[in-house]
């Protein structure tokens, strides 16, 4: 696979170097230079929010470090969790005395390394709470919802908990908002073409030139079905229905929507998808309060898209609309 890189083994570090050179508001710290943090340390007493995960998903994860969002982010190799030392460095950096929320996707490696790092920093009396993104409804059955993986919907939790932390909420409150957001968020993806690990010529999944796969994850994890590509409206209809089938209990009619591109899918296509999402949600009586369309969580050159719904209450809506600023996403004026 053709990539504009120098060497597979330098991919992550050169990417991080470029990112922080282009965005001096972000700094590369940590023993191995695998932690991205805000260059200006947050005000004392603010709860820190840390995320992390494998590389290859920009803007996720480290692109969301910024005001009203994350404080630090531990970065792993492509599609691998961050190592324990990076998780520890990120947590220590994010702590300014009020504790740290670790908020990341529910992947084995990520979880083990963050857990071990949390145990280490807790020995130094840093309070840590963990909330895991579990929005991908295709990654496990509803009865095992806790086993689901975190994908694009994680961005909603970054935003709400980040806003709550910026308003000087306690660790308890910030974690509660993150958990509440995760519990109210559902995502389903679809893949048209795979991504490739740097240096590899084998794709993250195999698919015929005319096929689409419903339910693929952000590493190309296998989905629910695969069939010849259908019309965009038909795919959206199924996605909306699958998400609504799993909507949480006791929700209102307000939703936030993220139509997310996986990398190679054009903005044009994402807007064609959004058009139908809006029609269908309107039809079901929902009101879209926060529409997001773009490539927020990618899988390098993978073609495809995901749809995330976050079922809002007033508080979450306010937090989603609160000012925030990171290299890839600005909301309101700070």
């Amino acid at each position, binding site marked *: 696979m053709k990539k504009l890189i120098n060497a597979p083994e330098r991919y992550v570090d050169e990417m991080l170097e470029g990112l922080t050179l282009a965005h001096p508001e972000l700094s590369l710290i940590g023993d*191995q230079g695998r932690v991205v943090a805000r260059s200006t340390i947050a005000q004392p007493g603010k709860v820190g929010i840390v995320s992390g995960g*494998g590389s290859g998903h920009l803007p996720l994860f480290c692109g969301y470090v910024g005001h009203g969002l994350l404080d630090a982010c531990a970065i*792993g*190799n492509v*599609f*691998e*969790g*961050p*190592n*324990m*030392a*990076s*998780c520890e460095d990120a947590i220590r950096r994010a702590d300014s005395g009020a504790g740290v929320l670790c908020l990341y996707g529910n*992947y*084995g*490696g*990520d*979880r*083990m*390394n963050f*857990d*071990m790092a949390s145990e280490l920093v807790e020995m130094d009396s840093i309070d840590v709470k963990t909330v895991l993104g579990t929005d991908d409804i*295709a*990654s*496990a*059955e509803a009865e*095992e919802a806790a*086993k689901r*993986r975190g994908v694009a919907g994680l961005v909603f939790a970054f935003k709400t908990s980040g806003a709550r932390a910026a308003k000087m909420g306690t660790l308890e409150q910030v974690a509660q908002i993150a958990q509440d957001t995760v519990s109210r968020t559902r995502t389903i993806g679809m893949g048209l073409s795979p991504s490739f*690990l740097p240096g*590899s010529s*084998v794709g*993250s999944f195999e698919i015929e030139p005319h096929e689409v796969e419903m*339910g693929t*994850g952000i*590493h*190309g*994890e*296998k989905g*629910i079905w695969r069939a010849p590509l259908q019309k965009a409206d038909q795919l959206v209809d199924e996605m909306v229905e699958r998400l609504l089938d799993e909507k949480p209990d006791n929700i209102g009619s307000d939703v936030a929507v993220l139509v997310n591109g996986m990398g190679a899918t054009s903005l044009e296509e994402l807007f064609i998808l959004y058009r139908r999402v809006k029609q269908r949600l309107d039809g079901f009586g929902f009101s879209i309060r926060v529409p997001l369309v773009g490539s927020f969580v990618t899988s390098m050159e993978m073609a495809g898209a995901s749809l995330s719904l976050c079922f809002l209450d007033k508080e979450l809506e306010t937090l989603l609309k609160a000012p925030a600023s990171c290299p890839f996403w600005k909301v309101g004026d700070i």
Partner: protein
Amino acid sequence: MIVTVQSLADAVRRMEAALLADEAKLNSADSLMGDGDTGSMLTRMFTAIAHIDFEAIDDIGQAFREMARAGSSTTGSSLGTLIIVALITVAKATNGNTSLDAHDIAAHIGAAKLAMMTRGRSAIGDKTIIDGLDFVERAIGDTSTDEPLAIRAVVASRLAVEDFRNRTSRVGRARLLADRSVGLDDPGMLALCTIVRAIANSE
């Protein structure tokens, strides 16, 4: 028979070579259900581990700790992290000793396996490297035979693969994909075969 820092260092070099040889095979096993990186990740990890200056280390617990540290610097993947968890467990148990007795190996594997299960939130029977270790632990601990340890370990790691081939995987992409895993070998269990074979291959 005892394991010294020197024999451990030799084994590490064999593991590195064996993983390099099996890299593509392990990747392709992982690509059927996972992200296709088992071989590359382990090669990278054991290359770093093989770079440790074991000559400068006397304490075998210290040697395991350095292995955990070097391995950890290269990956945060599930399998890699589980191996690091195992190394840390053995490092703690052997700290302060210059060697490790062969009779204790089964117990060390058992302790490592438990630590991995706790950290990985997985169980015996989930069709993972844990099941491979479980087979190896039981084969090594078997006092009813005098077949050499090494042979028993190698055979057990392979038997685990055979035994689980037609069972369903219960970690990773979980239940929705479980059916597809029937008939496929778990890459972590295959990787264990490679590692155990390299350890055993001491002549």
